[in-house]
């Protein structure tokens, strides 16, 4: 058994390589299809005079005057040697720029996932147990609202609500801080900034998971072994917690895994709404600035996160359902 698991892990690790290469080729060439270049954008500031010599210098500095294949070879070699290079826009090392944002995105992703877990699993379970009662209807309405409402819109409502509510209550409008401070430097500042985007995204994310928990749990509760457990006279609490819920979690864990990976790089609009200096905002800015090196690095980072998260979810399946074999 253990040997089979190790073989499976190694096989999966090797399978990641073609995925990453494919992503690298796609991102490199697709980016170059966008009209315009970074140097022209830099000189667009005033709409007035722009120096053609300065444009040429900029293009040479950034290697844009080289052939596309040379640029591609540089990119691939940098990726293989873990040298992401410098941002074309700021000139600063990409690893530094990303690491600054990474812990913010990671913290928001963790907080949003925890919010989603704390909402989705209890609500989904209650909804399944109380199927077709008013509680079930209420939970379903709550989760459908979460799916229907974009998290950035909820974010805007939260900020406006806080401003209007606090002004009505105390006369002084309050909104979450707009600059990030790490949790170890100032936990109150940190939490008071990140709790709102975590709630806004966690709610939407929980809505999908709540519905999935409900439907899979309903399916499991109709299984023979659950009927057997009831016939044995086990307590309903034990049947739900120990037997049904654990088996119902497989698709829910997949959703949490994929959503977590998505949150790491996909909070594009929500990050702008709350002015979170995370990977999503960096993504938007680097695409807007035609910062090829930064965009390529970010895409590869997100692809890697997705691939690894899927990998970990697959491994997690074995713990949840020992019937799963990796051969």
């Amino acid at each position, binding site marked *: 058994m253990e040997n089979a698991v190790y073989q499976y892990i190694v096989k999966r690790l090797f399978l990641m390589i073609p995925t990453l290469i494919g992503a690298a080729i796609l991102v490199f060439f697709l980016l170059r299809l966008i009209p315009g270049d970074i140097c022209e954008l830099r000189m667009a500031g005033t709409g007035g005079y722009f*120096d053609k010599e300065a444009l040429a210098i900029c293009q040479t500095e950034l290697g844009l005057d080289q052939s596309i294949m040379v640029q591609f070879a540089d990119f691939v070699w940098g990726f293989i040697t873990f040298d992401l290079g410098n941002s074309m826009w700021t000139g600063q090392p990409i690893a530094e720029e990303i690491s600054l944002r990474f812990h913010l995105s990671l913290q928001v992703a963790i907080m949003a996932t925890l919010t989603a877990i704390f909402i989705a699993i209890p609500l989904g379970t209650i909804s399944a147990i109380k199927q077709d009662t008013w509680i079930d209807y209420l939970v379903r309405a709550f989760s459908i609202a979460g799916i229907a409402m974009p998290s950035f819109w909820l974010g805007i409502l939260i900020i406006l609500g806080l401003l209007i509510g606090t002004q009505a209550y105390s006369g002084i409008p309050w909104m979450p801080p707009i600059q990030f401070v790490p949790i170890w430097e100032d936990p109150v500042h940190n939490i008071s900034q990140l709790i709102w985007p975590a709630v806004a995204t966690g709610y939407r994310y929980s809505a999908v998971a709540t519905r999935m928990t409900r439907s899979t749990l309903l399916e499991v509760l109709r299984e023979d072994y659950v009927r057997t457990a009831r016939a044995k006279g086990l307590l309903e609490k034990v049947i739900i917690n120990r037997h049904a819920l654990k088996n119902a979690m497989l698709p829910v864990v997949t959703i949490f895994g994929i959503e977590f990976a998505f949150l790491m790089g996909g909070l594009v609009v929500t990050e702008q709404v709350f002015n979170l200096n995370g990977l999503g905002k960096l993504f938007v*800015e680097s695409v807007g600035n035609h910062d090829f090196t930064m965009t390529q690095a970010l895409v590869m980072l997100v692809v890697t996160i997705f691939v690894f998260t899927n990998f970990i979810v697959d491994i997690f399946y074995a713990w949840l359902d020992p019937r799963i074999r990796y051969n």
Partner: protein
Amino acid sequence: MKHFMYPKLVASVAVGVALAVSGAFATAHAQKKGGELKFVVPAEPPSFDGHRETTFALIHPIAPFYSTLIRVNPSNPASPTDFVCDLCEGSVPKPTNDGKRFTFKIRKGVKFSDGSTLTAHDVKATFDKITFPVKGVASARKAFFSMVDKISTPDASTLVFDLKYASGAFIPAVAMPYNFVYAKKILDKDMHWYEKNVMGSGPFLWKGRSAGSFIKGSRNPNYYHKGLPYLDGFEAIFAKKQSLRVQAIRGDRAAIEFRGFPPKSRDDLKKALGDKITVQEGDWNCSLIVTPNHKVKPFDNPNVRRALTLAIDRWGGSKYLSRIAIVKTVGGVVFPGHPLAATKEELHKIAGFWPDIKKSRAEARRLLKEAGVPNLKFELHNRGVDQPYKIVGTWMIDQWRQVGITAKQRVQPTGPFYATLRKKKDFDVSIDFNCQSIVNPLLDVSKFISDDISGNQYGNYQDRDLDKMFDKMNRAADPAMQRKIMRDFEKRALDTQANAFVTLWWYRIIPHRSYVKGWKISPSHYLNQDLANVWLDK
């Protein structure tokens, strides 16, 4: 009645003057020291090198760290012609040698933030880098100094500019806020050092940066303007979304944004916070320009281009558009507040500025018919930015509809927008913009000269008559002569040839927390941003 009114008027004026004087006196003595100014900036600068970059996103967070040789008067920044010394002594020098020599005396005892002394040699190295950049070094405003022949330093406190010809554009060019004075010893070692580092002699010292988040500065205790700055420090917070920047001011996470908000945001803030918000407004040295592509038929025909400008009701549009967009002032090729700008009467004589819009549109219809395109259809190329591009674009489509023209708007993000203008050139008519820092009309109108000289004209045309006028105007030292040539230039550019035409000039609206004092609005979001005079009444 008149007899009764007169003493009352005198009394009112006297009281008003007394209040103003006492107010000014009280203000002058009421500045409070301390505090940190937090302000929002819509974008992050690509690098820290002012000589290389063109964006205001560099000026707002970085200008407080640097000095310049001269600058707009921080007490009177609304004036487009009031320049004062910053690093030089006394007042801005008058030219000698038939207008071809400017001698600046440099202040003594000025220190860079590393403790070294700033001399004329540093200022020379700075202007050498801007004017005569060495190979591989980019200088975004080199062309503004094309009249400079050589720069010399007879001694450590004297800087001399010798010009090839007398030019009224020189002093405004020197006063541009991007001309940060750098240390010669650093430039000698590495011309690119200032792209990633900050070391100046301005009112604030570099405190730190968090990429994509903020830049902080702290008070320079050795600043040479005694008693300044008032603030202990500042924090420039980067926030891309306009709605968030407005909310940040409302929630007091930031006190001000220096670029400008649309009228709706001003009204919302004022409604929510009342007298806790102060609004400063004024004409903005930015204009939206309509550029027909002269290489595309029928826009090679001056009459068709004239028809396009004749159809636009600028006087009426100003009234309504200024309620929803950051445009307001009707003007020609020169910033409306400048002595070289056309008066209202002069504008009335130019196509598209006639006071009678009915007559103007009738003429537009006639010209279109004569050109054989009474129901002209084309695509208006525009930049994908709401304020004011898309709003003005939509308005113009409606204006043209009223003379039988059907225009469809094609909007592109900034990158592809410039690729279309500069490389592909596959557009019929495009919106373009001209947004300068210092009001320097003699150079700012380069937007209208031939594309092989201009470098920023996208209409794909050559007009040698305009080029000659431009050259003559820039070599004329006499302001009256400059003004006369400017009128001819304007008439030809906007009317007889209608090569391209100005829509409306922008209008700058800055609603800020009322506790921010000492900052005065200027015609440009690039100017008066060293924050030395700003203080917090908290």
